[in-house]
């Protein structure tokens, strides 16, 4: 037995050195991030404690096993003993295992209670998972926006070199203030998504029809990148989470700008739009929100994503066209855009798809204005 002790003692000192060289670095490619919040640090420490307990148990068990395999190999003339049971040994290791588990359960419960807190935040943000983008709404200020992947399709297809933040960059990150308790109310619009920011140790499923809560309090400014972690369909890997934490003053300025923009947007609805203005706005909206499925050339990816070029609805049925954009198509990936986007956006993208490609020549070429969308909304409300 002295031999076991000697060997395992050596291993106990050697292995941590080996692993720690791999594992402990500021932004590790091998290990869980320490993160920036109190909760994420507690979780990291808990993870390391449990990990080392497992390593030590593993070293003890495997040392005994491999030592037995070596020592009692038949080729060295080992003769088998004939014992096959020992009541007190069985009781002993059952109790020992139980004690180790209790030892693990205590800090786990403490960290769990620390992380689990659904009290209101100073800032409350409604996060909605869509196929395949996130929508953020600041509940106090009633402003919101979508956050789309900004990595280009050319990078994904390997036609141009991949950027530093390949698949981890968005057009508009979520902005939160530092040193403020921020509560996230998380839900889904279509299927289940999951909102994860490793540096906050926040991962909550976004479930349609239900609202989950999570919270964080970020001590210093920075950009934090996360991901969707519940399989949500074709572009599951292409809806990253990016959060920018800024000082309180900068955050207030950001919100003020958003509020002003929203006001401007409301003004735009009553403006008289020309076809060219609608086309221009519709084309950029289409590129960001529609082209992923219906493709830039309007051909779609049949049968899942129908072609828009030559579609009877896009050619000759503008009222059906409005209805689809507003309500979505039940049982398909086509989401309802009505609640999420302004009348101007919806009118312009409908106008664009009715004019683009060969649709303008082959169809009725009808122009849909923001006022038409307002009329549609009013009709529904009655």
């Amino acid at each position, binding site marked *: 037995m002295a031999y076991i002790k000697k060997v395992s003692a050596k291993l106990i000192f050697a292995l941590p050195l080996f692993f720690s060289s791999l594992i402990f670095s500021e932004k*590790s*490619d091998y*290990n*869980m*991030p320490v993160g920036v919040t109190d*909760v994420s640090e507690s979780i990291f420490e*808990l*993870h390391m404690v449990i*990990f080392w307990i*497992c390593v030590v148990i*593993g070293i003890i*068990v*495997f040392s*005994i*096993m491999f030592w*037995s395999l070596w020592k*009692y*190999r*038949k080729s060295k003339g*080992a003769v*088998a*003993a*004939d*014992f*096959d*049971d*020992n009541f007190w*040994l*069985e009781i002993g290791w*059952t109790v020992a295992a139980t004690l180790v588990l209790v030892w693990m*359960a205590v800090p*786990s*419960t403490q960290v*769990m*209670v620390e*992380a*689990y807190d659904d009290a209101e935040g100073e800032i409350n943000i409604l996060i909605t998972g869509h196929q395949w983008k996130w929508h953020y709404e600041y509940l106090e200020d009633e402003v919101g926006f979508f956050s789309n992947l900004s990595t280009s399709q050319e990078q*994904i297809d*390997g036609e141009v070199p991949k950027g*530093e*933040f390949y*698949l*981890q960059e968005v057009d508009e990150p979520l902005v939160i203030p530092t040193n403020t308790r921020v509560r996230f109310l998380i839900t889904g619009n*279509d299927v289940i998504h*999951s909102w994860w920011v490793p540096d906050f140790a926040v*991962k*909550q499923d976004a479930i*349609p029809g239900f609202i989950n809560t999570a919270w964080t309090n970020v001590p210093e400014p920075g950009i934090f990148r996360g*991901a*969707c*972690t519940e*399989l949500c*369909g*074709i572009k599951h*890997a*292409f809806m990253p989470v990016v959060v920018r934490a800024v000082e309180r003053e900068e955050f207030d300025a950001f919100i003020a700008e958003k509020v002003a923009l929203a006001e401007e947007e409301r003004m735009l609805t009553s403006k008289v739009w020309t076809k060219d203005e609608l086309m221009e706005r519709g084309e950029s909206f289409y590129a960001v929100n529609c082209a992923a499925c219906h493709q830039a050339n309007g051909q779609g990816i049949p*049968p899942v994503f129908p072609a828009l070029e030559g579609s009877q609805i896009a050619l000759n049925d503008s009222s059906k066209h409005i209805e689809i954009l507003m309500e979505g198509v039940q*049982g*398909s*990936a086509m989401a309802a855009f009505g609640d999420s986007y302004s009348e101007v956006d919806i009118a312009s993208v409908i106008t664009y798809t009715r004019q683009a490609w060969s649709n303008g020549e082959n169809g009725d070429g009808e122009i849909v204005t923001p006022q038409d969308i307002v009329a549609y909304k009013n009709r529904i409300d009655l």
Partner: protein
Amino acid sequence: MSTVVESHDHGHHGPAKGLSRWLFTTNHKDIGTLYLWFSFIMLFIGGAMAMVIRAELFQPGLQIVQPEFFNQMTTNHGLIMVFGVIMPAFVGLANWMLPMQIGAPDMALPRLNNLSFWLLPMAFGILISTLFMPEGGPNFGWTFYAPLSTTYAPSTVNFFIFSVHVMGVSSILGSINIITTIFNMRAPGMTLMKMPLFVWSWLITAYLLIAVMPVLAGVVTMMLMDINFGTSFFNAAGGGDPVLFQHVFWFFGHPEVYIMILPAFGIVSHIIETFSRKPIFGYSSMVYAMASIAILSFVVWAHHMFTVGMPLAGELFFMYSTMLIAIPTGVKVFNWVATMFRGSITFETPMLFSIAFVALFTIGGFSGLMLAIVPADFQYHDTYFVVAHFHYVLVPGALFGIIAAAYYWLPKWTGNMYDETLGKLHFWLTFISVNVTFFPMHFVGLAGMPRRYPDYALQFADFNALISVGAFMFGLTQLLFLFIVIKTIRSGKQAKPEVWEGAGDLGLEWTLSSPPPYHSFTVQPQVK
């Protein structure tokens, strides 16, 4: 265990000739062979899908397949490996070995046995055919969470549901057969606590199957209703709850996990005692441990769902109950090690696979324990850390158990010894490649790579390339296994009845000739 056997000439009772032997057979060995070949073929089909996945993930960016097909590959890889490889292989081993281990001539319900096998090719024929349909096959993950698998699924989901129903019927019929056989056909003197551990492991597994396969059937039926008949079990807009799906699915799913490992526990126990030349240590605690694992498996399901938003008390309950499972599992590992301790050990291929099983399954157990810790699971959940965990328990766990069983019993089944040199080569190539494949997954998972991603950020590129290389090596190595099995069936040194030195005392199957007579025991042996 010592036995008295009378030898008989069974030459007049051969199998039928040609295809009808296999179509209409009611013989436990023929049906066992069918199950084993079925699962072997499925291993290569499911394996080919894994190769597609690993080829796409070799580098960041989309090169080989589009995300839509990638999702079909991950989904079908999972479904085929779980329901088409691991489970049928264990049923095949049960068919071959249970009658021989309990001293019976055949299974209790031979015609049912035929039916339960032939349902399987039908079920998987339907499932795989969906891949060739215009809308493509199931693409919502093998856990098929609603509403992605209901409202948002391709219409081929209906074929998938039907195929799951048929698999479920097959499993339930097989389990009824196994329980009936074990309770009614044991040799005189073989009390429950004298049964070989493989028999015990299957008795417990069969009860688990009967308990949970109807739950799976229930959940897919609810999906069927939601999709086609306007119900709203899983649709919040109609008053349902998407999370209900996960509760029902995992109430099936967690016992299912143990269905896939318990028979391997039985197999490995036999192999370790054979090659340690020392009876298994703590037989009764092994039985109690398996029973405890089975019972606990019904109260841990929501540990798969720590991020769905459960109340604190719920999270803590499922954390504690999950941690409890480490106790009986640990006891089993300790017993295996104690069996080796002061034995007289040799390292034939089945023993090598079993030693690797104990070591690597334990690593899978450690990561399982880490995943049970709720706050830490917030970081692990749905990342490659989980993928690493369940591949460690299913590949060097369940699959190594099956491969070890094949090497251990092939000489008994065929009458020919396998090629030991090739067997060892197979082991070392498999052992190395399995670790090259699955160990780095822990690291990419911890560093933040989510599972079921066809494309990933650049920081994960190096590990993914390494993982893919390991996976290709692992896949190719299994062709060597196929070669060894065929070679053993066709030729090889004549195997003695006891095959392994000293095995004659370890179980009734070693008292029969190699290959054994067509109707294993026509006269029941007496177990003392």
